[in-house]
């Protein structure tokens, strides 16, 4: 059985890019989680910075409610620039 709570791991692959989720691991505390994350997820220099976050601290949207949750954005085509007619000849818009 894995020791400690579950931690989610985020790695910044290169300077200039945002941290992205790569996976999770078990560890008894934050310090150990960080060290384990380095060993588990960056053995081949996959990253230059790591965040570890207790999985229990993450609140996720429910897959069952996906449709109702994201529906409000579905009928708002006017949020996209392609919704608007750009008259012939108008540049830089």
């Amino acid at each position: 059985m894995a020791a400690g709570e579950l931690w989610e791991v985020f790695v910044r692959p290169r300077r200039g890019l945002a941290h992205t989720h790569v996976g999770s691991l078990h560890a008894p505390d934050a310090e150990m989680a960080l060290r384990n994350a380095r060993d588990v997820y960056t053995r081949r220099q996959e990253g230059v910075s790591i965040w570890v976050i207790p999985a229990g601290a993450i609140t996720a949207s429910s897959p069952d409610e996906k449709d109702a949750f994201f529906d409000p954005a579905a009928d708002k085509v006017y949020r996209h620039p392609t919704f608007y007619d750009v008259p012939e000849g108008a540049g830089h818009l």
Partner: protein
Amino acid sequence: MYGNDFGPDQSLLDQVADAERALVEAAARGRDGAPETGEEQAYFDQIVAAEQKVEPRDWMPAAYRKTLIRQIAQHAHSEIIGMQPEGNWISRAPSLKRKAILLAKVQDEAGHGLYLYAAAETLGIERDELVDMLIDGRQKYSSIFNYPTLSWADVGAIGWLVDGAAIVNQVPLCRCSYGPYARAMIRICKEESFHQRQGYEILYTLAHGTPEQRAMAQDAVNRWWYPSLAMFGPPDTDSTHSEQSMGWKIKRFSNDDLRQRFVDMCVQQASVLGLDLPDADLRRDDETGHYAYTQPDFDELMQVIKGNGPCNRERIANRKRAHDNGAWVREAAAAYAAKQTAGVRREPARSDASEKAVA
């Protein structure tokens, strides 16, 4: 001029896509690791020179941090205050379609303000402090939002001219040396494109409508043209922050270069609208290909910055009222969260008690 992001035929979205590509390429070139003790400044300088990004936990000069906080906060405040002039017309939009679009746009401005406040917070300043500094006047927002929106056509003029000028200013910020700001700007610029187009469409519709509608569109353009030119800030000779910001690659082009680019774009767009720009001296210089134009009234700009524009007091009073009126919501949310946390803590105690009861 930097790279090819001033390409004559590129759309703004193309320029943003280029900036995003450059960011990924610079990341792939790699310059990782950390500076030796005592070498921090040299390391920072190398990162900036290599077009790479400075990240929140990197060493950075104190003045760089301070400049970024000032600039990103001012930018965030502008998005938030910018909701007011347009919000003024939501309830009076001429159709349900226009109303839904305007709501979505004002909603975007709030979102952009939040992305930017979050970017500023990575530099070690608290959100509450930023809000306080806006309300008590220690930090500024773009002067353009201190002008009133007198007719529906103003919503069109703001989208076309004000958002257009903002985009010209903001696209180079997608290449800013500070990572969180550059990434926020890429997201914002992609979303801004609809703002400019919806404004242009409103003006095009009005300009091809009745004589009264056409006159309303022309009047709005007349009033917003010079304040939009002033958005690029004082002339290069008087710009206090420019040189150092260019050195740090926070800023990429001078105020006057950006203003010129905006004028050149607008002349062509105005001709398609069939509206006039209110400048009798506007003419193309055949040698440079750029348009000569009349400068905005920079004394007026300074007055508006100092707090004496038509709507300065109203904008801040509204912001303060909204913030104060929201206090009970923040308190209620905090009280509810505290109660939930206390409830979670109580639960094991309750199950202990029930086990004892069973035993």
